[in-house]
């Protein structure tokens, strides 16, 4: 039986790597991928606790989180496409003015 702390440690490490990626990345698509990485780390925490408490609510939560992540990915990528159309660059450092 793998202890709960192992799953939580892996989830924390993945979440931290996602945060580091969001901070250091300059490509907006890879930045968005790091956000998805963070969401997956949280999913692992929820499922681990659901198993170790014998409670199904964690897995239901994960179901909803996945649906929300899918919707967010669709809209976020549409925003990225329109950002690229307006500025011809995917570098977030260059998108520093609200004005075009």
């Amino acid at each position, binding site marked *: *039986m*793998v*202890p*709960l*702390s*192992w*799953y*939580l*440690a*892996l989830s*924390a*490490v*993945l979440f*931290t*790597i996602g945060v*580091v*990626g969001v901070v250091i*990345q*300059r*490509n907006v*698509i*890879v930045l*968005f*991928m790091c956000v*998805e*990485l963070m969401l*997956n780390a949280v*999913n*692992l925490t929820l*499922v681990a606790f*659901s*198993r*170790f*408490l*014998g409670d*199904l609510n964690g*897995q*239901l939560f994960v*179901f*909803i989180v*996945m*649906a*929300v*992540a*899918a*919707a967010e*990915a*669709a*809209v976020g*990528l*549409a925003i*990225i*496409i*329109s950002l*690229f*159309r*307006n500025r*011809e660059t*995917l570098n977030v450092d260059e998108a520093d003015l609200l004005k*075009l």
Partner: protein
Amino acid sequence: MEIIHLLFLGLAALAVVAAFNVILQRNPIYSAIGLIVVLCCLAALFLTLHAQFIAAIQIIVYAGAIMVLFVFVIMLLNVREEESRGDRQKYLKWIAGPLFIALLAEIAAVLRLVDTPAPAIANPNQIADPSTSLGTVESIAHGMFTDYVLPFEATSVLILMAIVGAMYLARRGSQAEMDRIEKALGGQGEAEPSTADDHVAV
């Protein structure tokens, strides 16, 4: 050290290596492949946690739809390898490493206290009411349509909003809007990436 521990360590190591790959690769398509590897490792870990339905949904929805969307967008926008970054703050790299080690030490210190004996999970084929078992499709459906029907319906409305929003945001603008954008960019180049049609032509 049983087989399940070795399996967990193998999957965890692969997931962490792939996650580092996501943030450190220069070519975004390699980052996407790294993220797909992470998703598959997490799906395998969900299987060890009696979450069969969530594992299948992870592969189908996350790796099979969301990552395909990412790969399509990378292809559409013709994203190249990143040119060498001008590091204006090189010294930060030397702070980041020790801070990461410190964070890992803090996580280890906290998580030492968490372990409790895990409850035994009943085989869903052997209990009287299968809708209370953990992780099966029947139990998730039972919970979703009785206790959690409101979040379920709200999620479907959310998905509808996402569809409409994505279609509106990614539409081709009218000619007047294209002209305005081109004028705003000062004629540095066409606002509409002209290579998009080249990719579609066979």
